[in-house]
C-alpha cells in the first residue's frame, strides 16, 4: 500500500470587510420619510425631522450582518442606506446633538470609540 503525506489544505477564504475611506460629506436638511410598511407601523413613523448626512466613499461598503455607522463626534448614526454608487445616506434623528466641527468617521456597528479611524472630515451644518 502506498502511503501519502500531504500538507493541510488552506482554510476557507476570509471575508473582506475592511471599510473604505470617506471622500466626500454632504449635509441635507430634508424631511425624513420612514419606510412604508405593509403590516405594522414602523417605530420611526413618528419621526419627521432628521438631518441627512450623505457620504461618498472610495469603494463600496462591504455587505455583512453588521451595518456601517457614522460617528459625528459622540453621536452615532445607526440608520443608513445605499443611494448610489459608493454613496450612502445616514440619518440623525436628534440633529441638535450634532456639534459643529465634530469629527466624522465611519465604522461598523459595535466598534469602540478608541478603535475609530482617524477622521478626515468634520461636521458642518452647511456642508
Amino acid at each position, binding site marked *: 500500500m502506498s502511503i501519502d503525506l500531504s500538507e493541510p489544505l488552506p482554510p476557507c477564504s476570509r*471575508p473582506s470587510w475592511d471599510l473604505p475611506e470617506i471622500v466626500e460629506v454632504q449635509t441635507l436638511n430634508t424631511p425624513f420619510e420612514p419606510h412604508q*410598511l405593509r*403590516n*405594522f407601523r414602523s417605530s420611526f413613523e413618528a419621526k419627521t425631522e432628521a438631518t441627512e448626512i450623505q457620504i461618498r466613499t472610495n469603494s463600496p461598503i462591504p455587505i455583512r450582518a453588521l451595518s456601517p455607522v457614522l460617528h459625528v463626534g459622540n453621536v452615532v448614526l*445607526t440608520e443608513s*442606506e445605499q443611494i448610489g454608487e459608493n454613496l450612502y445616506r445616514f440619518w440623525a434623528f436628534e440633529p441638535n446633538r450634532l456639534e459643529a466641527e465634530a469629527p466624522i468617521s465611519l465604522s461598523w456597528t459595535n466598534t469602540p470609540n478608541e478603535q475609530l479611524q482617524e477622521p478626515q472630515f468634520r461636521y458642518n451644518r452647511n456642508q
Partner: protein
Amino acid sequence: MKIKIVKRDRLELPDTPKFISPPMVTEPLYQCAIAVTVISYVLDADIEIQVDGVIVSSANGGSPWPEGVTVPIPNALIAGQKVRARQKTAVALSDWSAAVIVKDHTKDYPAGPPRPEINPAPVFECGVRTGVSNLLTGGNVWVTADQIEVGRVSGCRTHQGVNVNPVYGLGQKVRAWFELCKDPSPPSSEYVTGSPPNPLPAPSVDPIFESGTVLTVKNIVNGAKVTVYRNGVNQGTWPCWGFSITINGLAPFVTGDKFTAMQSMCPGNPDSPPGEGVVQPCSSLPAPEIGPVQAGDNRITLTKFVPDATIKVYLNSGLVGASGGPIVMLTKKLALGDTLIVVQDLNKCASSLALEIKVLCVDPPVSSNPSNLNLFPVGFSEYQNGGIKGSVYYPAEDDGNQQPFNVRLASLARVPIVFMAHGNHSPADPSYLGYDYFQADLAKMGIIAVSVNCNALNGSGGGVQNIENRADLIIDNIAFFQGLDADPTSVFFGRINFNLLGLMGHSRGGDAVVTIPTVINLPEVNIKSVLALAPTNFRYWARLSTIEPKGYAFMTILPAGDGDVTDNNGAQFYDQAIPATFKAQLYVHFTNHNFFNRQWLDDDSLFTSPQPAVITRSDHERILTAYGCALFRATLLGQSTTGYLDGTQLPAGVLTQHVYRSYERSKVLTVDNHEDGNTININSLGQPTTQLNGMSADEFPFDRVSGAFNSSFYGLSIGMVVKPGRTGRVFRSELKKVTNLSKKEIWIRAAEVTDGSSVAAGPTGFELGLEDSNGVQTWVDSDDVGGLPRPYARNPGMIKTMLNTLRFKVPCFKAKEFKNDSIRAILIRCNRNDERAIAFDDLQIIN
C-alpha cells in the same frame, strides 16, 4: 466522566459465574409484530420470550452484537400485552427484563409507519444485500428494483438486511417498503444503482483475540459478497449491506491464527485484495469503553468492546452486572462518587486491564438525534408573487419538485409551519437556499418549512428600519401562505395550521423574527417558538429597548467564533426572554457566523483573528438541525424533545462537547435572579443572603455598560460576581421556608469571569451546598455536574464571560444526618486555590 485504565489483577474482583444480567427487549413494540428483538446478552445464550406471563418462544441468541437476536413469536402481538425476556446459559439464568408494553402504532404514527431508509446507501449493480433502517420491529420489509420485488423479510428488526435475488442490474431504481398491521409506510427514497468500485478496496479486519469466535470485517462495498479464510481454509461467503459485517459462530480463535477477507461484486470484475487480521494473545485484550454514566443510572452503555465478550461491571467491588454489549443492566442504581470497574472477558480469556470510572452527579447520556425522525417523503417548490418569494419544503406523497401534499397526513389535521429568514449578504447570492437541509429535515417529520427570499433588503446599509422591513416581508410571506391555504388550486389548500407557527432567523433575520411577534397582526396566527441563530440586535445598537421575547418558546444559537456578529447579541434576547414554556441558549465553541447557511462560503471567524479553527460546515449544520428540530418538534408537534435543550440528554452525531447551554423553564421557583433591585443582601424570595469567610460578592450589570464588572459580559441582565479571594468563601441564600427538595434539582447559571483579553491557565469551579433545618451542610462540586466551562479563546478584546446552566440533582447531596427534605438555605462555596472571579445568575429550584 472521570476514567482511568487500571490493572485488573490488583483489584481482586470476585467472579460470580451464576450471575448474569437480564437482557433488554428493544422498544417500542407494536401490535401485529410477529417477532421481538432482544439485545445485550451473553454470547450464545438461550433467549426466552414471555408474553403476558407465558413463555412463547426461545432461540439461541448467537452474537449479541451488532443487532441482538430477533425471535419469531407464534402469535402476533396485541396492544396492551407485556413482553419480557431472559437469558439462560449452561450455568446461569437471568432475571426477566423490564416489561415492554405493546402499543398500537397508529397512536404514535397516525399517518402510517415511519418511512424506511436504505441504509447504507447508495446501492450498486450486482449488489446481493441491502440494509433497510427506520423500521418497526416485527413488521414486514421488502425491496424492489424497477418496481419488482427482489427481497423480503417478514418479522424484521429495526435495521434489517434484505438479501436481493436476482442481484441488481445497472441503472435500476431501488426502493424499500414496509408494512405493519397491513398499514403501509411511504416508500423509501429511490436510489438508482450505479457501477460498483472497480477495483474493489481491500477489507479490513477488526482486532481479534484468543478464544474469541466473532470476526468483524470492515470497508465493505454496498451489497458485496465477503469471503473469509482462516489460515488459508475457506470459512464461507456472506452477503453484506456494506460498510461492515460481523461473522459469528467461528471456532474459538487461537493466537497467531490468520484471517483474510476479500470482497467481490460483479462477475468478470476481480475480487478485492485480501484484508488480514492475526489473532492476538489474551494478554492484548483491552479494557472496554463506555458512554457517560451519572447518578441514578441503572445501566451502562458500551461504546467499544469485543462483540462476543461478556462485560462484567463491579460497583464498589461487588458484581452488579454481567452480560454482552452494548448495554448492561445493573442490579443497583449508581450514586455520586461510586467507583465502577468494567472488564470484558472472552470464553477462556479475561482481560488484564479494567476500566475504572468515578460516577458523577450529572453526565447525560447520548440519545438519538432529534433530526432523525423520518416519516414522510419531501416535496419542495419555489414560489413567487411579486416581491414575495422563496422556497418551501413539505411532507409529500413522494420526493421531488411540486409533488402532491401527503394525503394521509393531511387527512388527520392541518400541519404546522416554520418560516425561515436569512440575513444580510450579497444580493447576488441566493441566501434563502442556504437552509435547504434544515427545511428538508422538518418536512420529513411533518412540518412545512418555508425559507423567505429577503435579498431585496440586502445591501450595504442597515439599522432598525432594515430589520423592520425584513419583519414586514416575512409577514407578507406568512400572509401569502394563508392565501395558498385558502386557494383550492394550491397544493397547500386546507393544509396549514397557522396556530402552530415557528420562526427561524439567521443574523439580521434573527433580529427580524424576534421583532415579528411584537408587530404581527394576521388573523389566526399563533407563534409557538422562535429560533434566533446568531442574531443581530439593531435596537440595542441604536440605544432603543431590546425586545423581550415572550409568549412563546425562545431559543438562540450563539457561535462563539462569530466574526460578524461579534457581540453574540442573541445573549441579550435570551436574558430578556420571558418564556411561555422555556427558553434556551446554545453558546457553541468553534463555530462561526456563516457556516450554518450553505450559500455563505467565507469563514468569517478569520476576520477577527486570531481565532481557533472552526469545525466543518457539516458539523455546523448538524448542530442547527439537531437542536432546531428538538425545538420545533417540542413546540409544534408536542413531542418530548426538550431534554436535548435542557441538557438531560445529548443528540447523537453532534459535537456536543462544544455546546454550552443556558436553559430556563417557566413556572419554576427562582431563588435569586438579581433583577429585583433589592441589593445583594436580599434574594428574589425577599430573604436575606449572607457572605461568610471573606466572601465578597455583589450584583453587576451583565451588559457592556458602565458599572459592569468588566467588559467581558455581553448579555442584558443583572447577575452576581463573586470576587477573587481565599478558598472557603461562602455565599448563603435563604429560602422562604424549610422546603422538601428530595426529588428536585438546583439549577444555576455560572461562568468563569475572563478579563476579555486572555484565558487563565486551567479551569476553576465552585461547590454548591444545601443546608438543612438542623444546620447540616453538604456540598457537590461543579466538576461533578459537568464543570464550569472555559472561556472561548478568541481574539483579545472579544473573549466573553458567557454563563452556562449547571444542574445539581438534590439526591447527590449526602452527609451524615443530612435531610434533603427540609432545606432552609442554598450555598455557594469557592474552594479553589486560585484568585478567579466567578459569575452567577438565575438560581432556581426545579421539579
